């Protein structure tokens, strides 16, 4: 089986533009969450989001604008960064051996809602002609593939909040078993729309705006956590067989060594620690690692009451007494829950943690939940750590769970 290495990363989120920026912001506990600024903000009870408010880089032509829903635009921005770092431009010579595996929860929801506004609010009799190609869930993967000339398998994964973690895991297997030399993988989401935010609000799982500081509204593993904060963005990873990376002289940032997927099969929304534990155990077995080989976990930690509790329990179940020695953090306190992009964004932060041997904190964890009594790296990040291997957890409505494990690359 091929070893699978990471040769490029990219990210765009409310924390900023670029994988390095995202990690430095996370490490220093800078929040990308703030009062939401959208035309319909006044109609929402939930007042905060991890919204991208800065000007995006100008990477597409004006004539292509109608083709790009925000989820595809975020995708191409992150993918472009990862491809550049990896030293891949238009790889036409290897096109059949290069693929794109991308995750998104709801794809071009903004385009669909804009169409509904045209039809039902503006009383127009038609929607814009590119509504189909902009809104389809595979639009982001397809736009990436055609821009970089990757003509191998181009797949889109849509399983709510594990979508991009699933895409990464399946891309890992795709390369490992020799189906491709490289896969641009990751995920993107742009769901800060009136309809989607209203639907999340109705489910009563969104955080209450912190009355003193909106930036501190998401408090994973805290006793006073009130729910998740929606975010938007994308993250991309170039996964490559070790032989291909070495033949190209590509930079090797880390190695992906384990992937585990499971389903709770118990409830459509209520998380189940046994199901989560199955994903983590599968990832460890896949990596050939013992639980005590992991030093850091980037937790799913969405800051819901039930979710954080289940994750603390599942980590204890898998890691036993060693769980107390783990460093664990949820960076969602800072970049929000980017849904289908979450697995990829958090995996990129995990890679950056391995590369810098530093771990971002669980920000705003001032009142630890006594039921979540592990080292959740409260308030402050830690540098100069020894991280031999790191796990990134992603869990989703529908009961889906994914755990990914990466290590610093060591030539054996």
């Amino acid at each position: 089986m091929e070893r699978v290495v990471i040769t490029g990363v990219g990210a765009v989120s409310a924390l900023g533009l670029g994988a390095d920026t995202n990690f430095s912001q996370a490490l220093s506990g800078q929040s990308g969450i703030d009062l939401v600024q959208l035309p319909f903000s006044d109609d929402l009870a939930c007042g905060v989001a991890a919204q991208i408010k800065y000007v995006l880089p100008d990477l597409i032509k004006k004539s292509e604008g109608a083709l790009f829903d925000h989820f595809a635009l975020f995708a191409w921005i992150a993918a472009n960064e990862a491809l550049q770092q990896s030293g891949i431009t238009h790889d036409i010579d290897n096109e059949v051996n290069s693929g794109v595996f991308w995750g998104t929860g709801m794809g071009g929801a903004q385009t669909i809602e804009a169409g509904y506004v045209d039809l039902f609010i503006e009383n127009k009799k038609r929607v814009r002609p590119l509504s189909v190609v902009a809104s389809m869930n595979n639009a982001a993967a397809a736009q990436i593939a055609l821009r970089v000339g990757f003509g191998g398998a181009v797949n889109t994964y849509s399983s709510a909040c594990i979508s991009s973690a699933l895409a990464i895991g399946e891309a890992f297997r795709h390369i490992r078993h020799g189906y491709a030399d490289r896969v641009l993988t990751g995920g993107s989401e742009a769901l800060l729309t009136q309809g989607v935010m209203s639907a999340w609000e109705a489910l009563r799982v969104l955080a209450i705006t912190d009355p003193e500081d909106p930036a501190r509204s998401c408090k994973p593993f805290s006793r006073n956590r009130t729910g998740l904060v929606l975010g938007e963005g994308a993250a991309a990873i170039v996964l490559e067989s070790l032989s291909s990376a070495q033949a190209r002289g590509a930079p090797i940032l880390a190695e992906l060594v384990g992937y585990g997927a499971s389903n709770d099969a118990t409830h459509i929304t209520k998380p189940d620690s046994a199901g989560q534990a199955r994903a983590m155990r599968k990832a460890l077995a896949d990596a050939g690692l013992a639980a005590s080989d992991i030093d850091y976990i980037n937790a799913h930690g969405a800051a819901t009451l039930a979710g954080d509790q289940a994750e603390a329990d599942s980590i204890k179940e898998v890691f036993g007494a060693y769980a107390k020695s783990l460093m664990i953090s949820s960076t969602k306190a800072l970049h929000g829950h980017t849904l289908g992009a979450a697995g990829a964004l958090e995996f990129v932060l995990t890679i950056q943690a391995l590369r810098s041997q530093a771990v971002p904190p669980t920000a705003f964890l001032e009142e630890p939940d006594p039921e979540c009594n592990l080292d959740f790296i409260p308030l402050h990040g830690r540098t100069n750590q020894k991280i031999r291997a790191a796990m990134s957890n992603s869990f989703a409505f529908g009961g889906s769970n994914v755990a990914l494990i990466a290590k610093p690359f060591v030539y054996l």
Partner: protein
Amino acid sequence: MNSKMNMSSFPSVAKLLADRLELDVNTIHPDTNLESLGADSLTVVELIFDLEDEFDVKLGDERPALVVVQDIADNLDRLIKNKTAS
């Protein structure tokens, strides 16, 4: 074809194309090939959609061959003329 004498919609077509494709409007002529401008079928579909709104006409189910810029203007002019006549 009387449209070359009566190019009522050509300036609008050229202006919108120039804006979409980020080109100097003076480089767009009636006989300019659409593909050579970089206007693929999707660009043309978008363009016609906005021109239909601008002139309050509908191409409907017609699928005219659109090769040069004037072809778009001709079709629009015909629809505008029919609308005025009715």
